[in-house]
């Protein structure tokens, strides 16, 4: 072994990671681990602060854990509270509309009063001191989130809840809403006819950059009948602004 020049061991005592030369994934992993180990304590204070803030907000959370034991029993959508029309009903459902609007993912089927940010963990952390819009609650999954220590992954079965949520009735009319990003604001206009989104567009674009490159998003809102737009790699900030604008507009469709 000694005659081998293969870099199995650090040839050069220059330091840990040298033997990983040429293996960027390995070197990257080592770097992440090293920084993580060294800096864990450093992030504690910030985490505690955040935790306190979350605790203050938490009492407003709707009770949504009914029917679960230790968070492990799959949650069944509560159809008593949420009509799930396969065909769009004539009567507008205020709860359904606001709920659908408030939920990023359309599986939000159990609570009748979603409180944005109540229990969700989607803070808009902005390293750049951005004023972000309040994050909507979106954290419901058909299956429960397992505790951190449990290693088994329970993949939730997608139910048809998502489908029915998308067909939920909204009050007819034309609504506008604003979304904010670091680069500026976007106003979305959403028109609802017969409970369906028939028109969605960016009506005002006050962003630093052109809004036109997120023009693909409004048709997606039509196609999906919700604000569940894709993440766009490379254009996320304005995507988010449009998303929040649609949310705001749909919230008015009550």
């Amino acid at each position, binding site marked *: 072994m000694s005659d081998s020049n293969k870099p199995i061991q650090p040839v050069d005592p*220059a*330091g840990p990671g*040298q033997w990983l030369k040429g*293996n*960027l*994934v390995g*070197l990257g*992993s080592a*770097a*992440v681990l090293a*920084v993580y180990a*060294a*800096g864990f304590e*450093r*992030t504690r204070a*910030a*985490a*505690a602060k*955040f*935790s306190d803030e*979350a*605790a203050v907000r938490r009492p407003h*959370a709707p009770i*949504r*854990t009914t029917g*679960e034991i*230790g*968070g492990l029993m799959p949650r069944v959508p509560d159809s008593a509270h949420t009509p799930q029309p396969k065909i769009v009903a004539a009567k507008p459902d205020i709860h359904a509309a606001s709920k659908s609007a408030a939920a990023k993912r*359309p599986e939000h089927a159990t609570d009748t009063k979603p409180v944005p940010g109540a229990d969700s*963990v*989607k*803070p808009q*952390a902005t*390293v*750049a*001191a*951005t004023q972000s819009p309040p994050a909507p609650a*979106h*954290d419901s*999954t058909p299956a*429960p*989130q*397992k505790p*951190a*220590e449990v290693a088994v992954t329970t*993949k939730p*079965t*997608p139910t048809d809840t998502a489908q029915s949520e998308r067909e939920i009735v909204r009050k007819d009319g034309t609504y506008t809403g604003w979304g904010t990003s*670091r680069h500026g604001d976007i106003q979305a206009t959403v028109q609802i006819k017969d409970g369906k989104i028939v028109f969605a567009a960016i009506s005002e674009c006050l962003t630093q950059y*052109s809004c*036109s*490159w*997120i023009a*693909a998003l409004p048709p997606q809102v039509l196609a999906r009948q919700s604000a569940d737009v894709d*993440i*766009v*790699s*490379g*254009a996320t*900030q304005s995507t988010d602004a449009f998303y929040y604008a649609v949310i705001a507009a749909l919230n008015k469709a009550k």
Partner: protein
Amino acid sequence: MGTVVTIEVVGHGGDAPGRVARADAVGRAIAWFQHVEDCCSRFDSHSEVRQLSDQIGVPVPVSPTTLEAVQFALALAEETNGAFDPTIGAAMVERGFDRNYRTGERVSVATTEHATYRDVEVDAINSTITLHRPLQLDLGAVAKGLAIDLAARELRPFTNFLVNAGGDLYVGGHNAAGAEWSVGIRHPREEGALLDTLRVSNCAMCTSGDYERRSVIDQATHHLLDPRTRHSATRAASVTVIAPLAVVADGLATAAFVLGPVQGLPLLARHGVEGLIVTPSLERFTTPGWAHE
């Protein structure tokens, strides 16, 4: 980092300790971004990388974060023969990328020579970095990637989560619909169009495009400079890399952007990552394993 960071953890309330643990972890994940920014920003005069430039030729003790970030950046520079070079900071300032995105404050650096990554020496044993020539480190791509990876590591116990820093992201598990995360890639030229849509899970995805930041001096100059020529790289319009780590995806995307498809694809393949390179004439080049819907 001049970026809005979004963190999503999929899952409902659970019991009270579970919620506290989740909020705690998200708080720590966010704190990592702040921490990396504090160490690695070339726009903050108090950051460690800025402090380094004040002490040329002297070993300067640095935090593990800066040490690891610089060490990785140098390894990437070596792997790419300088197509990625963290010493490009001075050239960035010359080209007008000299404003702190947060405060608008201008930065200036006193560098005259064309230094390269070979002028940076890392002593991992003593945790010091020595700059042998006046230069300004720009860890941009590496620092952001590292922060995403640290945040992702913090959130790993929750399995299903998303860390999104301005379109560079790490996705864990599945989305709230129980499906793999659906990520669109912005088209570099056709406004509003997507290049591709991918279903991804447990990986990082970073896109480098020539459309993001334009120089205030010259609109034809974008923020991805070829370190070897000190001008905007022109061989690619957009490069997306999918890798196990954001630091790798972000770093290799930047390097492949400079190299273009002919040299870029072999680089990506050599490191076992997947990539999509689109040239300014909109030709598409992908690694063999690149899959799309």
